[in-house]
Structures are given as structure tokens and as C-alpha cells.
């Protein structure tokens, strides 16, 4: 019933998610925030894989990349600084 090595890995990834979301809260440059968001969705996809839902992992990976690309395009077209 104890925690296995895989559990510690998942914990580390969840910790990374928390750090990444805090970073997105504080970063002022929107382009950097969106890049961190791309990393966030990637780690999220790995967590889904760890939790035995590969279906969700592949969708999250595709959707995360799609959303990141869209956000980057819009930020490139508009303004990059958070005021």
C-alpha cells in the first residue's frame, strides 16, 4: 500500500505543474508565459500517461500544442507586454 517509485515521479511532475502555474501568474512577458504554458500541457500529458489514460495523454498533447500555437499567433499579432 506504500508509495512506489512511480508515485514519487508523479508527485514530482505535479510539483512541476504547481511551479509552472505560479510562474505563469508572475511572469510579465506574455510570450514567456505562453511558453511555460506549453511546458505545462506537456507535463500534464505525461501525468495522464502515468495515470493509465493514454487516450487523454495524446489528446492533451495535441490540444496543448494547438492552444499554445494559437496563443502565440495572437500574442505576436497584438501586444507582448502585460500592463
Amino acid at each position, binding site marked *: 500500500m506504500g508509495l512506489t517509485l512511480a508515485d514519487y515521479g508523479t508527485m514530482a511532475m505535479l510539483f512541476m505543474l*504547481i511551479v509552472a502555474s505560479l510562474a505563469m501568474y508572475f511572469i510579465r512577458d506574455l510570450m514567456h508565459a505562453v511558453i511555460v504554458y506549453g511546458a505545462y500541457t506537456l507535463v500534464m500529458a505525461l501525468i495522464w500517461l502515468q495515470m493509465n*489514460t493514454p487516450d487523454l495523454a495524446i*489528446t492533451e498533447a495535441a490540444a496543448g500544442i494547438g492552444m499554445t500555437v*494559437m496563443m502565440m499567433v495572437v500574442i505576436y*499579432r*497584438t501586444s507582448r507586454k502585460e500592463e
Partner: protein
Amino acid sequence: MKILLGKVLINYPYFAAVILFAIGSATVLTRSNLFKKLIGINIMESAIFLMFIAAGSRRDGVVPILHMDDSLRPYINPLPSALMLTGIVVSVSVTAFALALIVRLYRFYGTTDAKRMSDIRNGVAKE
């Protein structure tokens, strides 16, 4: 005490989900930049997905695909993952729609910051 700690630790995905939910809703409610609000919404939704998936997964389970793994370990519950798939689709469409609105707002106001937008609008109203 040790048993209690073990009980708490074994449920770590829920704690992470709660923390992520809090950070996400804080981002939505306190940051005035529209992109930040959008990112916050996405963080919040993924936190809820995490909670749902953690409820459906089991520690000794395997992927619920027939003939994928012939050991006799139990499948995890496939229903939450199918449902959260829909949730991801919804969050993608919300994001896309919000981005289209941001582009339109930027064309009118020249900024993506909600506070400055309302400043500009009030200034226009006064003149």
C-alpha cells in the same frame, strides 16, 4: 499519526488538484490581462480534470484496452477519461473563441489589458 500521514500522502493528486484550482482561479480573478485570464481558465479546468481522473484511476490498474496486457490486473475505470476528453475539447473551443475576441478587442482598444480598456472607454464617455 503515521497512518494518517500515509492516508494523506496516498491521495496526493487531489491536493495537487486543489492547489492548481486555487492558483488558476486566482489568476483569472486578480490578473487584468486577458491572456492571463485565459491561461488561468485553462489551469483551473485541468485541475478539475486531474481530480476526475484521479478518482477513476487505481494504483494497481492497467490501461483499459482489450488484449493489451494479458496479466490479470484490473482495468482502471475508462469512463472518467472518456468524459475528460470531452472536457479538453470544450476547453480548446473556449480558448479559440476567447482568442478571436481578444484580436477584435485589440483592434478597437490597442491593448490587451482589461483595466486599460475600461479606462479608455470611460475616457471616451467623458469626452
